[in-house]
């Protein structure tokens, strides 16, 4: 019983499935389908909600999601490549969500422009990460001993 929320969602889903199976009128085969559908929906929703509340409460820490590690391995400044990848991921996800909600079905095909947009964004992040890693490695190698990499985060604010 380590994770109370998980067990609560599981018991809730099973309870709803039982309620549909016993008290809801209708043909048995349709009732089974409905019970599975609603049970699945409840489990998926509560799992998503649990993750969301954990992020909101700080139990899942995402405060460094935009930060680039410094050469010395400490906290660095915010990364522009991570930020733009986050923005484009959200924009495409939100667009897909709006389309599915409005049409009631998944789009037949994802246009190549969308994939290009995400591709440009993700490639920039990967290349930026490569440049940063190469630069950090070289700077650490050339840094005089005892300087700790000479790496300080930029001024805040």
């Amino acid at each position: 019983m380590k994770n109370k929320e998980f067990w609560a969602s599981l018991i809730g889903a099973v309870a709803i499935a039982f309620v549909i199976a016993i008290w809801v009128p209708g043909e048995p085969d349709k009732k089974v389908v409905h019970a599975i559908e609603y049970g699945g929906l409840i489990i998926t929703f509560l799992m998503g909600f649990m993750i969301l509340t954990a992020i909101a409460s700080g139990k899942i820490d995402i405060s460094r999601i935009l930060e680039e590690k410094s050469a010395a391995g400490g906290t660095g400044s915010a990364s522009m490549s991570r930020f733009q990848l986050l923005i484009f991921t959200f924009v495409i996800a939100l667009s897909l969500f709006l389309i599915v909600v409005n049409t009631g079905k998944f789009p037949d095909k994802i246009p190549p422009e969308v994939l290009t947009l995400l591709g440009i964004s993700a490639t920039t992040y990967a290349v930026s990460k490569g440049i940063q890693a190469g630069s950090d490695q070289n700077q650490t190698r050339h840094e005089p001993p005892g300087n700790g990499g000479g790496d300080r985060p930029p001024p805040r604010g």
Partner: protein
Amino acid sequence: MTRLVCLAATIVFGGLFATIAWKILTREISLDGILWVKRQSLSGSDTSFSPTRVQLMATTLITATYYLSQVVHDPTRFPSVPTSWLLGLGASHGIYLGGKAESAFSSIQNATRRRRKNEK
């Protein structure tokens, strides 16, 4: 059932977007130094304002706003993105990466010079 699925998805996805936006606005997710570049100079490490980051930030926000406005206007299909927009975005990212590579290269050069100077 479809309405219930939409409601559940709206709560979870809307909540996720709102949580991340809230954390960025309250500075729990820090954006400090996002427009600044750090270089190794001959005297040590210094930070300076980066125009390449500013142009990437502007391009990203403009493209994202344009795309979202198109989707909100017609939420039945993915909007078509003009090739010129994609080229512009690609060029902007290229400029950013070029600036970053130049900064990294000059940092390595300065670090090497500093080390040689110290060895002498």
